[in-house]
């Protein structure tokens, strides 16, 4: 089992319900393949540093999950097929990154 973190940017023209639907769909996708969700973050509508697909903003979401390595390939394939996705990035977390992610979560929790 490895820890992974994936950040993706959704199309800003989607409605709130559509976004919720998409996020839930991929969460289920992960869980159905035996992944364990550790954290989810919704960064909301953010301005992009440069235009992607002629759009200046996008909905950012973050998943942190624990899974076997063979989950990432199919997940990214689905991302690529899905037109609602503008960008995605999946990174494998090493031990320092896991510690940092936990610290970051606690800090965010305290702020909220």
């Amino acid at each position, binding site marked *: 089992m490895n820890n992974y973190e994936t950040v993706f940017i959704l199309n800003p023209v989607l409605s709130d319900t559509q976004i919720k639907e998409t996020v839930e769909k991929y969460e289920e996708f992960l869980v159905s393949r035996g992944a364990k969700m550790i954290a989810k973050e919704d960064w909301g509508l953010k301005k*992009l*540093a440069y235009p992607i697909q002629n759009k200046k903003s996008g909905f950012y979401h973050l998943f942190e999950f624990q899974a076997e390595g063979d989950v990432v390939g199919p997940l990214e394939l689905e991302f690529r097929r899905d037109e609602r996705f503008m960008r995605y*990035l999946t990174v494998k977390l090493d031990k320092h990154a896991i510690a940092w992610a936990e610290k*970051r979560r606690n800090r965010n929790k305290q702020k909220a």
Partner: protein
Amino acid sequence: MMSSIEQQAKGKKDSEIRYLTPLNIETTKNKKYCRFKKSGIKYVDYKDADFLLSFVNEQGKLLPRRLTGTSLKYQRKVATAVKRARHLALMPYVADLLK
């Protein structure tokens, strides 16, 4: 015998100033250090664009270790973090007047 520097300068015909003893000017610069090593940061987060901004110049280019003092081990991590942040449009690839 001329005592002070001013008198010495006046004594010369042209404005060439010569000192017998070197002037006492502070020349020691602050030693650069690696901020990751110093404060014990082990992971460079690509999600924290504000922090990464301190490692790029106004055009959004990565600054060399020579200027920031980052050690090689962490410079590599900074570089990958900046590249990831750029991919996710948290930081620009090219910019002007970024700061």
